[in-house]
């Protein structure tokens, strides 16, 4: 491998004018946009968390007033779920799906760009609320009737409701794009059973998104009608039922948590084999378990409502389905462990985060099974036990998995490796900090400390665990600083990676880092689940820059035509969000936004497709 030659990577991916970024339809650049934006929002959500933990570090503190506190935990949850974790997954979908299946781009490149711009503008829209009358303050789940107009007459809830609708549109459009891409644009020879596991999980996630989001779309519409058209869908005074909101929210909300974890599971399913130097154990079983989790995920939502009083039949039925979903999840974990067993393990940073993800997710999964028992849940519902559970699966699971992915594929985007030594520092600090933050919260929950309270008295026995939890939170923050400095410096002066620094098995490692705009000079023909390993076998253990892959003889390699950039996606997105602003600020904006939307729509249709 020619690392000693002065192979400076072609970092044109980061250059280019602002206009080229605004009009890009290249999935790799859109991935970078998603990555940077989502990490930015991750910092915002993290800041919100630090403020929360600061306020809770000692009993009866007054650093953050109760009204602000409510806004903070609402926005922390909303930001992390919708503006940080989902888009971070989207960054990986964008970067990896075409590369892993041997395609040149996604099925609908302009639609892809549109999804990003809608996300960016939607994220800004929700956060404007902080300076426009108050941020959303009814929790990330917005239970009725707290969200009713008589209890919250400012626009705080409207920012939340409209904002989520906007983000939902972004996600649904992107998911349709990825579904079509994965089903229809795989390289010759790549059957569904030869796709990388990350692509499998991405496809399942995309289906989850398009089938689960409509439930919250409808719920939010009904909420908005309650607030502005004097309907009473969720208001008992008019004959409505607040429980209906809970059902609608969690019919979406439970599949949403699988939307959050499956991509990270896909990432781990790629990293573990790479750094064990053996294939994923039980490929088919892992794929089908993912599908089973998705399917069952639609049948467990009421376990978020065990204490609502639905009665023993409903509680029992959903307790059973909740326990059942632990089975395919456990199966995946066993398969990951079996992948490691007998492998030649290399403990690079991506591997550390991947193994850390599996370990933390096991803990989170176990506390989840515990919560799946209605009698236990009646004690732990709305306590810190639930907070501990959700952070073990979403931080320990998703965030660790996503960081593993960042360290693993950083070089594919930038051409340079992140510094592995500092990566390990990040990992150790984050591992320690994370567990220090959330392990004590199990005890806090069992001891009875409720969620969403802005302070607590000093004689409840909560003091020590809260203090430790806050210290842990700041350790996490420190680890993020380490990561940020590492990422920024490595982009400019990290070790040049070449196309295949890890000796990976999948197609993305067969092309240069960063890839040329057309990805593959010739579309490869695939004969197994690990085409890159196949090609390299016998030709050296380090990844050659041009492993001999079979190529499709029918593919024309003289006239690679890539789609043209376009400014319609950003304009369309702007029109949409402007109209939403109009609903809150001034009605004339609705008209303006609709006009921009309409013009952009026809401009888009008139523009030649490719």
């Amino acid at each position: 491998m020619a690392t000693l030659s002065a192979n400076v990577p072609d970092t044109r991916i980061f250059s280019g004018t602002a206009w080229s970024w605004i009009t890009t339809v290249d999935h790799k650049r859109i991935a970078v946009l998603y990555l940077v934006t989502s990490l930015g929002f991750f910092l915002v959500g993290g800041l919100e968390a630090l403020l929360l933990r600061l306020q809770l570090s000692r009993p009866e503190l007054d650093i953050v007033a109760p009204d602000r506190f409510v806004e903070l935990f609402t926005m922390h949850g909303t930001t992390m779920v919708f503006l940080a974790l989902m888009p971070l997954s989207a960054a990986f979908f964008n970067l990896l799906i075409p590369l892993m299946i041997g395609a040149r781009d996604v099925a609908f490149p302009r639609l892809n760009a549109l999804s990003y711009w809608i996300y960016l503008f939607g994220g800004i829209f929700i956060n404007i609320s902080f300076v426009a009358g108050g941020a959303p303050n009814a929790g990330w789940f917005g239970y009725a009737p707290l969200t009713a107009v008589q209890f919250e007459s400012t626009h705080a809830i409207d920012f939340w409701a409209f904002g989520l609708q906007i983000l939902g549109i972004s996600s649904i459009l992107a998911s349709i794009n990825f579904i079509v891409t994965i089903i229809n644009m795989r390289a010759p020879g790549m059957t569904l059973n030869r796709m990388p596991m990350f692509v499998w999980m991405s496809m399942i996630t995309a289906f989850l998104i398009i089938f689960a989001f409509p439930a919250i779309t409808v719920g939010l519409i009904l909420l908005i009608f309650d607030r502005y058209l004097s309907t009473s869908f969720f208001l008992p005074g008019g004959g409505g039922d607040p429980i209906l909101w809970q059902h609608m929210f969690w019919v979406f909300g439970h599949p949403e948590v699988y939307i959050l974890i499956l991509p990270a599971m896909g990432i781990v399913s790629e990293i573990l084999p790479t750094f064990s130097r053996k294939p994923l154990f039980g490929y088919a079983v892992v794929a089908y378990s993912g599908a089973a989790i998705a399917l069952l995920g639609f049948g467990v939502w009421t376990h978020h409502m065990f204490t609502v009083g639905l009665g023993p039949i409903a509680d029992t039925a959903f307790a059973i389905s909740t326990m059942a979903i632990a089975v395919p999840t456990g199966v995946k974990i066993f398969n990951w462990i079996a992948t490691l067993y007998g492998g030649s393990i290399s403990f690079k940073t991506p591997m550390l985060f991947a193994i850390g993800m599996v370990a933390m997710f096991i803990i989170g999964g176990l506390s989840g099974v515990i919560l799946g028992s209605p009698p236990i849940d009646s004690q732990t519902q709305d306590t810190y036990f639930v907070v501990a559970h959700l952070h073990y699966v979403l931080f320990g699971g998703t965030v660790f998995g996503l960081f593993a992915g960042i360290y693993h594929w950083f070089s594919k985007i930038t051409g340079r490796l992140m510094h592995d030594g500092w990566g390990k520092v990040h990992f150790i600090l984050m591992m320690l900090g994370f567990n220090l933050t959330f392990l004590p919260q199990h005890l806090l929950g069992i001891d009875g400390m409720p969620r969403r309270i802005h302070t607590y008295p000093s004689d409840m026995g909560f003091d020590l665990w809260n203090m430790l939890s806050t210290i842990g939170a700041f350790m996490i923050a420190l680890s993020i600083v380490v990561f940020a400095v590492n990422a920024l410096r490595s982009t400019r002066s990290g070790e040049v990676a070449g196309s295949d620094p890890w000796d990976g098995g999948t197609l993305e490692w067969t092309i240069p880092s960063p890839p040329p705009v057309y990805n593959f000079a010739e579309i490869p023909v695939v004969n197994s689940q690990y085409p890159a390993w196949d090609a390299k076998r016998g030709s050296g253990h380090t990844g050659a820059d041009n492993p001999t892959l079979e190529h499709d003889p029918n593919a024309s390699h003289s006239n690679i035509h890539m789609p043209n950039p376009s400014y319609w996606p950003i304009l369309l997105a702007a029109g949409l969000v402007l109209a939403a602003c109009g609903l809150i600020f001034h009605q004339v904006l609705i008209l303006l936004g609709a006009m921009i939307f309409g013009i952009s729509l026809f401009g888009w249709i008139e523009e030649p497709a490719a």
Partner: protein
Amino acid sequence: MTAHGAEHRHGYAKYLVVAVVLTVITIIEIVIPSRPEIRDALTRPGVVASLLVLSFVKGIGVVAYYMHLREDSRLFTALFMFPFIIASSIVLILFFIFTLSGA
């Protein structure tokens, strides 16, 4: 799509047949709850069941023939049936939770 005159004259007829069937079914559906003698003969559960079955058949007619699902790849059928089953199940479950619990 190659244009075969004979094939598409055949196609026109097929759609007209489907249209007539759908119309007849709709007429039957309207008559059932409108005529007291039929309503009482079937009793309430019978009315509901027959209407559901009839409209389900109508739905199949629209999806299979008008939307060409019958002639197209099975993938499209799966893409449609899957969310239909999920949605129907969730509607049924919630319908029973709300009506049986008297909430």
